[in-house]
Structures are given as structure tokens and as C-alpha cells.
């Protein structure tokens, strides 16, 4: 077994305003270029740990605003389907967002706008990382441990890891790969779990199932 155990950490986000607020689609396009990278990240990923209803209609805050406040359903759909895991970095993701908005603006006869009290406010968040004191020595403990992890732990190890680690992978599969060839299949199964189109609760459930199935079969 590896000498490097898996330290279970936890995290909390604290949200801040960037001070950028937009009311029209053209202003939104400008906002997308001016907002810090942490803001683009927040509106795709930070929302997982922010107050929200867990059955959202759209998968990122940008798409939700375009639909609910600009009433531009077609653009909302095109923004909602953007999968941030397909982009190597935030700048690539930002570029894609801007392209889709510009394309919509090019085809629009007029600039869509929202009511004054429905502006989009670009936010960002800071992350506080905490130690749970729990440590896993054996991958066979993963199924039980993951099912009892807080949503903060799931966020930290499965989502935040992708921007924190040089390999841009989640901590679970990185740990499994570090243990040698024995767990390559399991690591691949973990990597196949889609982190984006669901909630943290769902990710926790799917991961736990993935680990328990593997070790049952094993």
C-alpha cells in the first residue's frame, strides 16, 4: 500500500462582489472580458456551494440570467451547454462565452436588455481549506468514506482539485494512480464521472457507488 495516505480535507467558499453589474447583452459581453478569472470560475463552479435550488434549469449563472432576465432562450441554451471541463483554462472558457454572446449579438436586430432590478452582478469567491482530521490508508475505505463526506469535501477533492493540481484531475483518481497499476481501472472510472451536469450530492452518490461496485466486484 502507498506510503502517501489520502488526507480528507474540507472547504468553504465566501462570495464577494466584483463591482461589475450589467443590464444589456452588450454590457454583458464587456463584463465577460473585464471580470477576473475567479469570477468566471465562480459562476460556473462556485455556485455549487452557494445558496441555490438543487434542480436548476440552467447549468451556469450566465445562462440562467440570459434566460430569466433577458428572455433570450436560444442564447441561454447555447451558454448552458458549455462544459467548463472541456477547457484547459479559464481564458479558453471566457473566450467561448464571448464568442457565443457576440454571435448572438451579430444576429440580433436589437440589443436585449433586462429590467434595472434584474442586472447581472459578477461575483467571485475565496476558498477556505480545512482539515477534517480523517486520513485514508486503503482505497477500499473510499466507498464508505466518500458517502459520509461533506459537500465541501466533495467540492474540494473533485472540483477544486482540477484547478489546483498540475495534472488538472480530481484528487481521488490522482491518489489511485499514485498507488500503481492496481487501481488504473478505478481511476479511469472516477475520471469518467461528469462533475458538471449535476449537484454535489449527486456527485457524492455516483462516486460512492463507483467505489463500492468496484470493490464488490474485486
Amino acid at each position, binding site marked *: 500500500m502507498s506510503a502517501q495516505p489520502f488526507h480528507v480535507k474540507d472547504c468553504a467558499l465566501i462570495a*464577494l462582489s466584483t463591482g461589475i453589474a450589467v443590464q444589456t447583452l452588450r454590457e454583458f459581453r464587456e463584463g465577460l472580458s473585464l471580470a477576473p478569472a475567479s469570477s468566471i470560475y465562480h459562476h460556473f463552479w462556485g455556485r455549487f456551494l452557494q445558496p441555490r435550488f438543487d434542480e436548476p434549469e440552467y447549468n451556469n449563472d450566465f445562462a440562467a440570467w440570459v434566460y430569466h432576465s433577458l428572455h433570450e432562450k436560444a442564447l441561454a441554451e447555447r451558454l448552458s451547454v458549455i462544459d467548463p471541463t472541456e477547457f484547459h483554462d479559464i481564458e479558453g472558457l471566457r473566450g467561448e462565452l464571448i464568442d457565443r454572446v457576440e454571435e448572438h449579438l451579430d444576429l440580433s436586430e436589437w440589443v436585449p436588455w433586462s429590467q434595472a432590478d434584474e442586472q447581472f*452582478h459578477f461575483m467571485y469567491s475565496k476558498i477556505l481549506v*480545512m482539515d477534517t482530521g480523517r486520513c485514508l490508508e486503503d482505497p477500499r475505505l473510499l466507498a464508505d468514506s466518500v458517502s459520509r463526506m461533506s459537500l465541501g469535501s466533495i467540492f474540494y477533492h473533485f472540483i477544486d482539485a482540477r484547478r489546483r493540481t498540475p495534472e488538472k484531475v480530481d484528487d481521488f483518481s490522482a491518489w489511485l494512480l499514485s498507488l500503481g497499476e492496481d487501481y488504473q481501472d478505478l481511476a479511469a472510472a472516477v475520471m469518467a464521472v461528469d462533475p458538471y451536469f449535476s449537484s454535489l450530492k449527486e456527485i457524492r452518490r455516483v462516486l460512492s457507488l463507483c467505489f463500492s461496485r468496484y470493490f464488490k466486484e474485486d
Partner: protein
Amino acid sequence: MSSLLNAYTSVAGEDVINHLLQLSKPLAGKKVLHVNSTREGGGVAEILHKLVPLMADLGLDVSWEVITGQPDFYKCTKSFHNALQGHRITVGTGLLEVYEKTNRENAERFEDVLREADFVFIHDPQPAALIDSIPNRKGKWIWRCHIDCSRPYRPIWKYLRDYCARYDASIFSLPDFAQRLSHPQYIIAPSIDPLSEKNISLPAGEVNEVFSEFGLDPDLPLLVQVSRFDRFKDPLGVIEAFMQVRRHVPCQLVLAGGGASDDPEGQAVLEEVLTAASGEPDVHVLVLPPDAHRKINALQRAADIVIQKSTREGFGLTVSEAMWKARPVVGGDTGGIRIQVIDHYTGFRVRTPEGAALRIRYLLHHKDKRLEMGKRARRLVRENFLLTRHLREYMALMISLMNGSQDRIDISTS
């Protein structure tokens, strides 16, 4: 773990309490001071009554001071409140002088505590000018705005901004309320306390008592709005909506509220409400004392639908209170109500008395929808709007301020 923290574990869950314990480590022994303008009445006092003992339980050296003033001071600060919510109000130089003088006098009263605290949370505009009297501040000063100031009346905001800009950070309940300030602006939604008298479970007998105590008909559907008598809560709009509903569905309305010691306009609004309700036996206007928490709890639980038809709302604690009791809410489409009432899921958001009437009629006709929305509403509050989350964010903010501009703060090794 203390018994207080232990009690929250059963409601909020072990993970939430673990977060609090971990975040409290770097803050152990830090002097934290909260300052507001009333000990009783209104949401801010209600939150502080629970937040302060919980912070103390987590090892912080926390205290709470209340500034006091003469009627002209409250007249001035009520005008500030209204102006921040968008009313075009002129505040004369005389009243502004009273405001500044009152803040100077209060600063003298607890100068040492203000100077020595590691973190000073100043709640709302009333004590905002205290900062002026404490030039040698040791700690970080945070201005916590509980008001919907998304579109403030500019001359008043310009005056207050001179004070607010001197703070190290500010907190707004929603991103929509953030202002152009050069310091960090944190977004923290308020919360309710699930273990308070206002929110704990009540025996059915105690809930049913409200019908006889307040002369209500137990066989008629009950609509309830609990709010201070304040124009922004639109009690007259609620009565108008009720009249429209009652033309089609028999029902009764309770408007329950009280005053806050820092709100001089309450009496005038109450009189307007009483006039509008006169001659309407099914409209019950209840003026309750500030400590009538169990009564309010029972009324919200007895209600079939809870209304909060505000036209401006910083957050609207009564919305989360009702949702915690699994009641659907028909709320004004404004401010903090928008993050609690998810349209068509946990209730309905409306902009007019007509809209409120339409949604109330729908819910009165569909008991299954009421129950379904109520269940979702309780879940949304449990996951997002309980005191424990609020406290976690306050502690995260303090740690964040201790760590400057870093976006990633690792306290796992501290």
C-alpha cells in the same frame, strides 16, 4: 462541544458544526464587537441574540453594544433607511448634526471596546459614523448593510458613503445591493435560528390555540403576513389582494406585527392599516409585543399560505421562517425574497396585489401543491438559510480579512 453547539448538530448536521469548529481555531480569543441600534425588534437584533452566544461558544471573545439616541436621531436614521431603499427624501442639516453628535456620544461611551476589538461589525447606517470618532483603530472594521440598497437615493448614499468607504470591508445580503466602494464587498445572506422560540416545533394544541385567542375561524383558510408596520412591507397591498381573493374563495387574513424601537413611522403605518381593515371582520390586525415569538411561530404554522408582499426587502427573515415551517410563500419580487422564494418551486413571486391574489387563489385550490412547495421550501432553508451557515460565513470573512487579498486560504495546517 458545548450543549448549545450540540443542539445545532441535530438540526444542521455534523458537517456544518465541524466547519464551525475548524474555522474557529484561527479566531480563538479574538475580540469581536457587534454594534447596532436596537436590542429588540427587527431582524438584526434577532440574529445577534443568537449569533453572539454561538460565537462565544466557539471561543471568540465577542460582545454586543447598542447605540442609543433621542427621537430626532431615529427620525434621521429612519430617513436614511428609506432613502437607501430608494425613497427621495431630504434630510436637513439639523438632523444630520444630531446623527453625527449621537454617534460621537456613543463612541465615547464604549470607546475602549471599539478601539481594542480585533473585528468590529457595524450593522446598518445608524452606527456607521462611529468610525469617525475612533481614529486609532486596532482591528478590522466591517460595515454590515442589511438593507436593500440596490438603488439608493444618491444624495443620502453620498453622505453615508463617506463613512462606509473608511471601513476595511462591507457585507451586503445580495450582490444586487453592493455599491461602488474600494474595499472588499462580501455577500452574505442573513439567516434564521431553527432553535429559537420563533422557529422550534410546537405542539399542535399550541398552534390551534391561535384560532381562539385571536378570534379566527378554524374552518376558514388562513393567510398570514408577519411584518413590522412599514410601507415597504406593503400591508395595504396585502389587504387589497385579500379582498380580491375573498370574492372567489372564503378565507381570512392576519397581519401580525409590532414595532422596533428605532422605527418612528410604525404607528402611522399601523393607523393606515387599521383604517383599511375597518369593517372587514376577516382581516385581523394583530399588534404583538417584540417578545411574542411563540405566538408568531404558531401563527405561521397555523397559516395555509404565508405572504410577504414587500416592495423592497433587504432579506425578509419572515420568508425563511415560514419556509422552515414548510409553508409556501407568496412574496414580493424584490431583494432578498428572490433568493428564498424560487418562483413556482417554493412559492410565487409577485409584483402587484392582483398577482398576489392570483397565486393565493391557485394555492388555496391546490392543497397538493401547497404541501409540495412547503416541503421544498423547508429543504431550501435547511441547506442555505440557517444561522449556522451565516456564522460560518462571518468567521470565513474574518479569516479572509486576516489573510489579505489571497483567494485561497489554507487553515488546515494552522
